[in-house]
């Protein structure tokens, strides 16, 4: 793999920054140029991402595209990057979503306090950090990205959002900072412990052995520091209340990145850090976490059913979906973990589809209240169908990508925690409700006043939404490409935990 030693990861993180620099030199007035530069950059990054995927060795479970340079040797901090299957999939999702968001949100920067330059610079900086957070194999580096990420998002919500944007942005930032600081405490704990026992390092693979010397008490505390931070990010019930506000106030594009990518950092962190660093503690807390996950699934679904605002509705559906993901992760079965990872990937796209179409609808109607829409099916068929398909993938209709992941999660959980899986399965009925209710209210029925002369999707919007739907459908029937990337990594994680998939009860009988 000649590309392996080309530091593709650094390259992919550098490109957006270069784009930002380019933006800095474009005049404020030439908005179009700004957008073009942003789009070009993101597309370029996407290409690099795909290159990585192509050159990725599916067979080997370890980290690939590894880079490492000392950063703060005094603290044993390295600028260390590397990706396993799970990280690759998520990076792929991020770099694919960003250009789509740029296209779909072509005019999102207009409602904002600041110029388009600022908007796209923030997006690009955010992309760098998204890649970094998934790619870093140094706990400290991860934390830096994890926290620094908040700043651009904060300004994206507060500066370009709508409604109570400032309040929502603050809520988001405070929640995340609180979690982040708890995590900082744990990181300090790890740092001191690793110093005390042997060499001070933040290298994830080295630290994976640390738990052997920790007291259970200590391990539990360190685990909690990480987990709470991730549970807030993910978000898991009852630490979710920032999400609906943020998603409602942010621009659709931002919401896509927020729900599609940023929240994944939480679930990704659970796999990469909670499980790897603190296997014992993970076992200890699994019952609690599974419970919370199941609650999230049903709770989020019910609130989605009760939601009056379409963006809040989507946010709540995500809470439900993140419940599934978390459940799958802590089920400690290959099906569960692979399913959860695939779920992260699929959720990225199905939520993107939902949010983008919702964004198109809102931008036409200047309202995000479901009740204001009605009978769009007859006025704007293409938009209506896009929304419908996105909805179907959100309720995990077989034949669409999310079904595979959701079912894997359920099966994987059932083999170890049947009760949880059974309760969670009721979520699929609720899902039908929370998707079909808005579909009926907004798309079906007679066309209500104010909607008669909405225009259907234009070419740009079609271009933005088409690839997403394509991915949703194709992966629904043929998920193997992604699953093949995920499986080895997932298997490794599970075996690191010292778990093996429960054998069929029948073979126990024999």
């Amino acid at each position: 793999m000649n590309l392996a030693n080309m530091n593709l990861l650094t390259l992919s993180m550098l490109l957006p920054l270069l784009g930002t620099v380019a933006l800095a030199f474009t005049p404020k007035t030439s908005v179009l140029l700004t957008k073009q530069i942003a789009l070009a950059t993101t597309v370029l990054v996407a290409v690099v991402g795909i290159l990585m995927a192509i050159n990725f060795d599916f067979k080997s479970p370890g980290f690939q595209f590894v880079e490492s340079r000392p950063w703060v040797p005094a603290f044993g901090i390295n600028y260390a990057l590397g990706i396993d299957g799970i990280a690759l999939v998520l990076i792929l999702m991020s770099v694919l979503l960003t250009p789509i968001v740029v296209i779909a949100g072509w005019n999102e920067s207009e409602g904002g306090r600041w110029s388009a330059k600022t908007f796209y610079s923030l997006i690009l900086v955010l992309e760098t950090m998204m890649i970094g957070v998934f790619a870093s194999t140094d706990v400290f580096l991860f934390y830096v990205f994890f926290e620094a990420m908040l700043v651009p998002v904060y300004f994206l919500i507060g500066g370009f959002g709508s409604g109570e944007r400032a309040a929502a942005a603050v809520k988001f930032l405070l929640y995340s900072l609180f979690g982040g600081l708890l995590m900082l405490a744990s990181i300090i704990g790890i740092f001191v412990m690793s110093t005390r026992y042997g060499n001070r390092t933040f290298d994830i693979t080295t630290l994976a052995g640390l738990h052997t010397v920790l007291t259970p008490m200590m391990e539990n505390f360190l685990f909690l520091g990480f987990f709470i931070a991730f549970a807030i990010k993910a978000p898991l019930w009852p630490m979710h209340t920032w999400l609906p506000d943020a998603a409602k106030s942010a621009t659709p594009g931002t919401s896509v990145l927020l729900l599609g990518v940023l929240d994944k950092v939480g679930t990704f962190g659970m796999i990469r850090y909670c499980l790897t660093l603190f296997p014992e503690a993970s076992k200890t807390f699994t019952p609690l976490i599974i419970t919370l996950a199941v609650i999230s699934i049903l709770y989020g679904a019910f609130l989605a059913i009760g939601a009056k605002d379409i963006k809040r509705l989507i946010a709540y559906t995500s809470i439900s979906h993140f419940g599934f993901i978390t459940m799958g992760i802590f089920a400690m079965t290959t099906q569960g973990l692979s399913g959860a990872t695939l779920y992260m990937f699929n959720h990225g796209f199905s939520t993107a589809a939902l949010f983008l179409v919702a964004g198109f609808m809102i931008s036409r109607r200047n309202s995000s209240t479901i009740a204001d829409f009605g009978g769009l099916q007859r006025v704007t068929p293409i938009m209506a169908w896009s929304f419908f398909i996105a909805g179907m993938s959100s309720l995990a209709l077989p034949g669409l990508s999310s079904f595979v992941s959701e079912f894997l999660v359920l099966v994987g959980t059932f083999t170890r925690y049947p009760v949880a899986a059974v309760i969670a399965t009721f979520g699929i009925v609720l899902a039908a409700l929370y998707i079909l209710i808005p579909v009926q209210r907004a798309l079906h029925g007679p066309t209500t006043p104010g909607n008669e002369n909405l225009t259907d999707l234009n070419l740009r919007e079609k271009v933005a939404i088409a690839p997403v739907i394509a991915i949703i459908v194709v992966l629904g029937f043929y998920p193997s490409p992604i699953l093949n990337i995920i499986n080895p990594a997932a298997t490794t994680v599970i075996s690191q935990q010292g778990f093996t998939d429960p054998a069929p009860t029948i073979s126990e009988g024999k």
Partner: protein
Amino acid sequence: MVTNSGLVYLIALPLFGALSLLLLGRRADKWGHLLATALSAGSFAVGLFQLSEMLGRATESRPVTQKLFTWISVGSFNVDASLLLDQLSICFVLLITGVGTLIHIYSISYMSDDPDRRRFFAFLNLFIAAMLLLVLGDSYLNLYVGWEGVGLASYLLIGFWNQKAAYATASKKAFIMNRIGDMGLSFAIMIAFASLGTVSFSGVKENAHSASEATMTAIGIMLLVAAVGKSAQFPLQAWLGDAMAGPTPVSALIHAATMVTAGVYLIVRSNFVFDAAPTAQLLVAIIGAITLMFGALVGTAKDDIKKALAASTMSQIGYMILGAGLGPAGYAFAIMHLLTHGFFKAGMFLGAGSVMHGMNDEVNMRKYGALRKFMPITFITFGLGYLAIIGVPPFAGFYSKDMLIETALNAGGVKGILLGGTALLGAGITAFYMTRVMILTFTSPKRWDDNQHPHESPILMWAPMAILAIGSVSSGFLLSRGDALKHWLEPLFEEHGEHTELLPPIVVSGLALTMVAIGVALAVVKYQLSEVEAVAPENVTEFTQIARRDLLQDEINEALFMRPGQVLTSVLVKFDESVIDGAVRGIGQIAMGSGSSLRRTQTGFVRSYAMLILIGAAALIAAIWVVTL
């Protein structure tokens, strides 16, 4: 097992049709319906070809498979996208594509003046493809895809005119009640994987005996739940009546002939599960019995011709489920009734459609009457279907239903008597309400006002009806001649020892026919010989009123599920707003509050600052002193 690369075309053709019609959009308006019909017919042709191939092979090597690709493979959970065509699925393939094609043809004319006809045909093709996947999938998960696929198609077609709010609601209702059933199916799959380590039919069949009965019972009951949801059986029957919102061809194809019978397919397909789980099997029979009565009773009170037919569909499927619940003895007859029912019920629905077509979409039978003169062909085809369903020999229904009743009676002991009795009684009631439909629509004096101009439908509509009518006449005889179907399907099922006959067959047939006669007689007396009001009379018995409201099914569902659900939702919304978010805000306010109260210590007076220092000094000394002790 023999592999065959041709199976995929069965699905591919209609799927291609659906996609191309949907993606091409208005461009395809001109010829879309023709393409769709052609593809459906093509699929039927492939089916016939496969049948001939199959007939050419020895019994044991008849089933053929085709592996398309590896679908999901994670750890020990491996599911291929692969198809299985055996004696059972071929029946369905032919029924689906055959009846499907006929209904395509019928729809060309029936939907001719609908602006969205192309979309309609796209959905029809989508349904055909999904239904074929359902019956061709070689594992429960593949079946699941088709299972929800047909659910989607039915949702789309019921809501085809979803600009009418009521229709939109009906489609939603159907989808959600189906989802409840689907939940059962996913439970079944999970249990199967967790306990047997496989989800393929063959795999489950292999382990069916080695697994504990409890496991198999669990799987069985979950499969039953799925079947109940899809086949509108008690207690998930409520959606079928409303599903009549869809265009009539849809009701004929999906909600009479094919999709609603998927439950029967599932249970018969899973015979090895139920044979290993008697309890589940008994439950199946009981559900079937209940539903057949339920549907029959509702049928007696409906004035809406399509609703009446829907009720009868429900009841007829009840028969099939009952048969499927009778174990190896009943499977074949269940399938046989399914096929014959496919013919005559589809035919009658198309007939109803033709009547509506002639009566400006009037569906209330009390506004019909004396249509025999105006639409003779419809009358004849419908009539043949009618004779078939009430089970008059030698029409199709007679054979299949008679066998079901007989098998039920022979099920042995009290069980046999109860089930058989219900079946018999059901036959009578069926005769009654179908006669009622017949009389109200065709033979009774006219009750429609003069701006109605009933007329016969064009050939594109009556030709399919005619063909189906032929089927309703002959299919029963053909299928049961020398137990053709029974032997055809036998290799799939376990051997079963002959039951002791409770009554000789001839007696059973006699009883059945008597019941039918009584039913017909009652109907004739009540509707032919006495005046029928054009508006439904209010001064009717409690029972009639309840029956008109589908035995309160919707009221019960609302009281038990919808209302509580809505309450729970609103409660949770408030809870989230006030309690959880409130707690978060509360923490913020606490910080704020304590901040501004501590702020007061900053009085601005030097002396109080000095005092603070003094106190601090004292405290510090004290602290250090304490630890020194």
